[in-house]
């Protein structure tokens, strides 16, 4: 039993090391590739533009639910006027970055992992190596940088729509004073809160994109079966690990950022 836990622990640490090296090599390989702007724009389209609808929809519903829940909690303390503050701070500091990252992982991260996994199985990655084209610079690096650009922007979209959703429930439906709603947000949300949210978004973008690319890139060694089932296995693992990583990183970053 102890031996098994030990082996799992060693395997986890070793995989974490591999992932770190993979991410660092990918980030460093950007300048080894060619047509960077073209690749970056394509990656921004895949990770950013295509995820806008889902981010806006989830942001709106999150704001609606949050407005409703917090209104009934605050009513118990006769503090409905604090609704704007409660909704905005919850979304900007926690829910916005976390939900946006999970949504992007579900849409773009899984697609990235599956695409690279299929390319590995079809020997396209080996073909790149034999053509002396760096596969990391060609396949992974533009996506990592695109994620660093897209995650904070999509998080900002989520935050705005979420706050509007809270307004829709609290002000338009439940009768909270509109002036109080906006004024509370204006008074309570500082630049530091917004910055902390963006720091989280950047961290989630880097970590989740690296995990998804890593799982796809090494699908031939990570999956227990080869072929299509192997790709499906590593894609699922990429999404699960990314989601866990988002929550674990969120906890670490929150405790670090709140202490400062």
């Amino acid at each position: 039993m102890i031996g098994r836990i030990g082996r799992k622990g060693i395997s986890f640490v070793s995989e974490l090391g591999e992932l770190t090296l993979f991410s660092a090599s990918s980030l460093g390989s950007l300048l080894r590739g060619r047509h960077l702007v073209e690749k970056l724009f394509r990656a921004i389209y895949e990770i950013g533009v295509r995820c806008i609808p889902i981010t806006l929809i989830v942001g709106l519903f999150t704001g609606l639910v949050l407005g409703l829940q917090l209104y009934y909690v605050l009513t118990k303390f006769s503090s409905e006027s604090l609704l704007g503050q409660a909704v905005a701070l919850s979304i900007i500091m926690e829910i916005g970055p976390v939900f946006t990252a999970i949504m992007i992982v579900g849409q773009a991260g899984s697609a990235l992992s599956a695409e690279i996994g299929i390319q590995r199985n079809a020997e396209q990655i080996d073909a790149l190596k034999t053509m002396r084209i760096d596969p990391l610079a060609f396949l992974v690096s533009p996506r990592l940088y695109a994620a660093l650009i897209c995650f904070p922007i999509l998080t900002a979209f989520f935050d705005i729509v979420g706050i509007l959703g809270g307004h829709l429930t609290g002000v338009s439906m439940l009768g909270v004073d509109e002036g109080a709603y906006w004024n509370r947000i204006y008074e309570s949300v500082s630049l530091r809160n917004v910055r902390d949210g963006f720091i989280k978004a950047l961290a989630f973008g880097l970590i989740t994109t690296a995990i998804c690319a890593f799982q796809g890139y090494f699908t031939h060694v990570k999956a227990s079966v080869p072929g299509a089932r192997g790709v499906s296995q590593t894609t699922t693992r990429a999404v699960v690990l990314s989601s866990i990583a988002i929550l674990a990183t969120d906890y670490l970053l929150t405790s670090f950022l709140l202490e400062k």
Partner: protein
Amino acid sequence: MKNTYLRIRGLSKRFGDLVVLDAIDLDIPLNSHTTVIGKSGIGKSVLLKCLSGLLMPDSGEVFLDGTPGKFPQCAYMFQQNALFDSQTVWENVALPLRERERISQKDLSHRVNSLVEQLELENAVDKYPAEISGGMKKRVALARALITNPEIILFDEPTTGLDPERKFSVFDMIRSYRERFGFTVIMVSHDVPEVFGITDQVAWLDAGKIKYWGSPEDLEISPPPELEAFLNPKLSSQSSAA
């Protein structure tokens, strides 16, 4: 045999305890066609991957034109072609130039179009690999390999899964383009004796070693008994039964 262009000495590769290549020696003449034959899973593709740099050999030396440690500029033709399925035929052929060399769009177009024309792919340039035939895919893969003017092209079982007619047309394609472009071929194939018609020398890989190495004519006149058993398994089983 002509002058040796690529000299392989003592090339070894193991995976864990399994020795796949055990001090392989092989000489490849310039502009020749060498075919490596042997049972499935014996390590033929591993040998090609070691030569292409996809795998690092554990030991051994490679001499290019007598210079040690210098690896040739190889292009690799994969069994399943390894074309990028989301890129058109033109983009696939242009890929190595676009990604590796500083080249103007005009020069790129000129080089790709001229090669596409020579390989009779003009009508397929805007198509995706899924929209063209198996033979055409092979030609696209060959065009992609030839675009950077490699010294050696490594063919990994190029006729796997093809019917006899298509098999011969692929062999014919390799022969005619080799004559036209003047590259050196190292090929792994199961198709014996069909492949003897286009190859200059045959290397038989067995138990990690090159156990026979010579021209197909010599092989047909006096094959070593072990190799004869590999080439004619039916005859060999009949004689052992008798």
